[in-house]
């Protein structure tokens, strides 16, 4: 502890003023920072308005009073205000299962079985099924919608992706061709196009007896879309398994499905977990595209909150709030992915040392 401080000082000195060019770079960067930081600080703190109504805000500094007034709307949008415990509980449930899934100690069959039940519970909870006050999905909004669409689509897409990845590597020509065409078609199309299919084509394509609401249609198409991306990551994991594993399983008399289920997939899926987490981060950011088809996800709710005639035009404050939410989740997830990678490679190294 006593030695740590001088060492830090040395690091700082060589890191900032080690050579002549280094000193120059430091000074130039400091000059840049003096141009950026003071105006930002003035906007966010000195000139800011922290309490009061929209009239109290001066348009020169930030209006944090807006955030206190509209935070409920940004987080839950048009959900009836006397029933907010439902979306709040949904957020809690989803956070709980996501946290459990992130901890390797929980990985196993019970967790896998808990997933469909949690999703179903959230769906019923948001809908207010079996109660006297059902809420249609076009009134849902904010953070619960973002989290719900994200987790449901990712969870539903993964099993499809496993099948697609297996088909792409199988010896069956017909299935292989189908899988390749499907994956390339989905990966070549922008997500906005997929959402338009959900909006415009799906209602026409489904038989009249089966009319789905917009949220469900979006969830179906996003699931099919993400499955192609996840399949490519899983395929990379399958390719990393040495062919000896396959041959050994065949020699033991295991059939195709038992080989995949007991030997190949447990190893392959383990390898691709960090990659899947990175993919999930990208997907969370992509859920913001739901705004394009008029679903009030977190970002769209923030935009709508600054369209309120009483609080017109405080877009910067609204965007800053949701940026912090997105950043918090994604930054945390990317740190987690790195930790997991280190843990896995550490485990492999430890296993190698034991041998």
């Amino acid at each position, binding site marked *: 502890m006593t030695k740590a401080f001088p060492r830090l000082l040395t690091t700082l000195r060589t890191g900032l003023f080690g050579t002549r060019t280094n000193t120059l*770079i430091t000074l130039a960067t400091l000059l840049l920072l003096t141009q950026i930081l003071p105006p930002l600080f003035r906007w966010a703190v000195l000139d800011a308005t922290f309490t009061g109504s929209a009239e109290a805000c001066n348009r020169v500094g930030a209006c944090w009073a807006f955030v206190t007034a509209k935070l409920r709307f940004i987080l839950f949008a048009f959900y009836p205000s006397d029933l907010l415990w439902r979306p709040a509980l949904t957020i809690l449930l989803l956070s709980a299962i996501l946290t459990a899934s992130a901890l390797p100690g929980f990985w196993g069959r019970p967790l896998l079985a808990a997933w469909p039940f949690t999703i179903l519970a959230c769906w019923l909870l948001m809908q207010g099924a079996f109660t006297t006050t059902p809420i249609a999905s076009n009134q849902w909004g904010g953070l619960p919608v973002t989290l719900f669409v994200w987790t449901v689509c990712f969870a539903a897409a993964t099993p499809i992706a496993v099948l697609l990845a297996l088909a792409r590597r199988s*010896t069956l020509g*017909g299935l292989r061709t189908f899988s390749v065409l499907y994956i390339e078609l989905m990966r*070549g199309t*922008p997500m906005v196009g997929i959402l338009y299919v959900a909006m415009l084509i799906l209602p026409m394509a489904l038989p009249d007896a089966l009319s789905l609401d917009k949220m469900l249609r979006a969830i179906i198409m996003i699931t099919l879309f993400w499955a192609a991306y996840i399949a490519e990551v899983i395929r990379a994991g399958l390719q990393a398994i040495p062919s000896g594993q396959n041959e050994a399983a065949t020699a033991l008399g295991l059939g195709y499905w038992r080989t995949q289920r007991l030997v190949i997939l447990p190893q392959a899926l383990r390898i691709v977990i960090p990659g899947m987490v990175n993919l999930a981060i990208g997907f969370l*950011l992509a859920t913001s595209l739901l705004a394009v088809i008029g679903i009030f996800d977190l970002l769209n709710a923030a935009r709508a909150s600054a369209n309120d005639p009483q609080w017109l035009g405080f877009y910067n404050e609204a965007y800053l709030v949701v940026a912090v939410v997105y*950043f918090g989740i*994604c930054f945390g997830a990317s740190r987690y992915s790195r930790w997991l990678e280190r843990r896995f490679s550490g485990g492999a190294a430890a296993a190698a040392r034991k041998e």
Partner: protein
Amino acid sequence: MLYRLRAWWGGWPLGQLAFLLALALVGGLFVSNVLGTMARIGILPGFGFLGSSANFEIGESAIAFRAGDTYFKAILAGLLNTLKVSLLGCVLATVLGVVIGVAGLSRNLLLSGLIRWFIEITRNTPLLLQLFFWMAIAKALPAPRQAPALFDTVFLTNRGVYIPSIALEGGPFGLLAALALAGALGAALVLTLRLSGRLTRRNGTAAVVLSAAAILSLLALSGARPVVQAPALAGFNIRGGLNLSPEFAALLTGLVVKFSALIAEIVRAGIQSVGAGQWEAARALGLHDGQIIRLVVLPQALRVITPLTTSSYLDLTKDSSLAVAIGFPDLVSIINTTANTTGQSMEALIILIGSFLAINLALSALMNAYNNRVALRGSTR
């Protein structure tokens, strides 16, 4: 022949056939439902609507478009807008990404820390949010009269960004074609030399000098001269120069900032993948830093960088479709308008998906060809 087909089709032949048939059946059911709905609302399926006139305006377009022109022309204008913003975005994001990536490797703690934070913030917030942010900034810029001029030539106003443009003054109009021809000739010359493996520094320079001389003599003969048109304040507006609309400027800025952060990460990983031993060995041979980067590090780093950048370019092109959310008339937004005004949503979406697939395939083919050049000789991937 039949044997090879059987081998390709593999085992479980009837099961596969049944699966594919079931898929075709479901697909057929969907299509017949769509056709039924269209017949009920009285819309004729097919691409005939492309020839009828589109009664909407397009904010900005590379080809002249007026309300009343055909839908085909409207969609073409949208496609050109998408290509324009994607191409510019790829080039600028690469330049900025390489600069940021290299600067992030600096041993200066302040600079590398600052870049670390820039990358984390841009990577971990949605692109759409960043586009909304840039759009809000573009709208909050001062009116042309109060707008500050950067270096007296670049104006940032709430009516868009004004930058200087280069135009040819005087001379016949066909000159442009002649210029393009001369340039293409030079490029073709270099390419043939390159492909036949006879490109050396000497004849490469000769080819460039020759085509430059051709261009200059053409210019001199026709009496045309290039003129830089700087935008300048005239009354309440700014005249001259090139005007980028607020939507285009916001979209381009958003795409470039987001993807420069992604490319910076790729560049950093690529350069770090070259072992320290390579640097030391190159120094021991007496090469200086610039030579080490150009001759030793970059050729090896490019093998890591190229395939990853390719997928970044593809993502950028697809993400340019977010233009629809901020009102830039790209392909997706025109397709959306077309689908809404004609009711031909299936055909419109087929055009949309087909166009993006074509762009993607072309871009990956191009980048794969480049990748084959930089890849390790004898390695198969």
